[in-house]
């Protein structure tokens, strides 16, 4: 009996361990291979992992094109997160606090963008821009605004979801106390409501940022030669000729993501992030 239990525990540990290896290995391999000094072979051949000799050679080889794309990606993701927050927070407040008929339907429709495959969203926005271009003589296709609008569309539901979840746990009596002690409604919102829902806003905005930052299928249709995002550059780089500097800039992004995660963990704790993940 005891031995059976021991074997079973070992088996479970082995399964769980190998799943963790599967999940983390690609990330470690990309970072590791980017420091490899080995020769770059044309086509699909790759640098070695583990690296044979450590260099920063590939980091010096990162072309301005890739840095530009990184800049566009960060800018688009920031617009998506900020505009998504500006739309998502009042939407969540209205849904949770308000008493509009058809509240569930409204909430479902606000979350609808998450149900639509991203590639369909990309096509839909492109078709829409073309449609208006026919009428007005100019369209948003290929512009920064056009690219960002598509990202705002998918970013907003994350903010609605996470702020909504925070609001539902909110103790309304705190607001009532402030109001009865003479604070006006705006002061109550600013001093009581906002600080309490702030973790939800951070988490939602952060999720919105990451979803936008990592997107390929929407940008695929909305980006242009002038405004292209880094994931799209990496994607095209993989399809055509492979440049080892892509591994280097990917590693830069990896470290950036880790730093962001660390600050979020300090700021609101990982559990907020976990909850948002569950809701999204």
């Amino acid at each position, binding site marked *: 009996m005891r031995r059976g239990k021991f074997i079973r525990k070992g088996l479970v540990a082995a399964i769980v361990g190998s799943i*963790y290896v599967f999940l983390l290995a690609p*990330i470690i391999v990309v970072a590791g291979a980017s420091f490899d000094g080995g020769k770059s072979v044309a086509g699909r051949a790759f640098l070695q*992992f583990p690296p044979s000799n450590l260099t920063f050679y590939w980091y010096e080889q990162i072309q301005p094109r890739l840095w530009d794309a990184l800049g566009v990606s960060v800018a688009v993701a920031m617009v998506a997160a900020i505009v998504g927050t500006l739309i998502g927070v009042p939407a969540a407040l209205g849904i949770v606090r308000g008493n509009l008929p058809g509240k569930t339907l409204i909430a479902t429709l*606000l979350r609808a963008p998450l149900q639509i495959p991203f590639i369909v969203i990309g096509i839909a926005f492109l*078709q829409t821009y073309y449609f208006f271009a026919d009428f007005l003589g100019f369209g948003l296709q290929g512009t920064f605004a056009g690219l960002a609008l598509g990202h705002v*569309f998918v970013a907003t539901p994350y903010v609605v979801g996470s702020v909504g979840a925070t609001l539902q746990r909110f103790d309304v009596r705190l607001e009532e106390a402030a109001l009865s002690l003479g604070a006006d409604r705006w002061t109550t919102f600013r001093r009581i409501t906002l600080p309490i829902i702030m973790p939800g806003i951070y988490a939602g905005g952060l999720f919105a940022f990451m979803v936008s930052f990592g997107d390929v299928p929407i940008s695929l249709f909305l980006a242009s030669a002038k405004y292209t995002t880094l994931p799209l550059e990496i994607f095209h780089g993989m399809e055509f000729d492979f440049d080892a500097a892509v591994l280097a800039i990917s590693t830069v992004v990896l470290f950036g993501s880790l730093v962001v995660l660390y600050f979020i963990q300090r700021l609101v704790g990982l559990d907020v992030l976990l909850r948002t993940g569950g809701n999204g």
Partner: protein
Amino acid sequence: MRANWTLVLLPPMLFSFLLLGGTQFLFIRAGFYEDLGIGLMGNELVVSNYVTAFTDSFYLDALILNIKVSSIVVICGLLCAYPVAYVIARMRSQQWAMILLAAIVVSSFVTIVIKVLGLIIIFGSDGALNQTLLALGLIDEPLQIVGNIYGVVVGLMHYVLGFMVLMLFSVIQTIPRSLEEAALIHGASSYRMFMRVVFPLSLPGVVTGALIVFNLCMGAFVSAAMLGGGKVLTLPVVIERTVVLDLEYAMGGTLSAILLVSVILINILSVWLLNRFRKARLVIT
């Protein structure tokens, strides 16, 4: 007071609904124009694109392949994610549980293209896995994983696993441990305890998680395109080629509408099945 919140809700609601309704309506409408190729469309609304999509086996096969791959990933994903989520939820040391969860969050947080890049380095024909297996003498020829359906399944698994673990973890965590102890004390074997207590209680979470993951897989483009090496033609990959390579905008709209409707239909069907299933269980027990 109530009117107040309605006012707060109205502007963001109108903006969101306009974007949702406008873009969805316009692209579905575009799918009904005759596709003249090279970016040109006819002026009349016709159903010819839909006739093509449902009679040409190329498009039909893409949809079937899409459903097949997504189902495989959902099943394999559940089988892999459940033990991980269970172990973390039942861990004695809170600190270790937190570390394991953090590792999942880190891996989910990383941009999918970068993870796929790593997967290609590992699973490619001259990648780390093949080199190791060859060196160990376990295989004579490199395994072909990237560039066929296995590669796509591996990529999609990586895409959804972390999410699935977090989802299942949050459900299993809410099942009181005392229920398990009670079952064990009354003489149930661990297997029986799991099948009769833990699994049924976690079923709503399992189904919700499976549905969301199925949706993600149906629409997944990056993993399918990069790890399929252009040879695994799931519907999202076909849509991209139709629009970007063939410049068939109307046909792209048609195919996107078919993808969207099939995702919605499958979701409705699963929810309906689940409700029936629940009722049936009530009658039996």
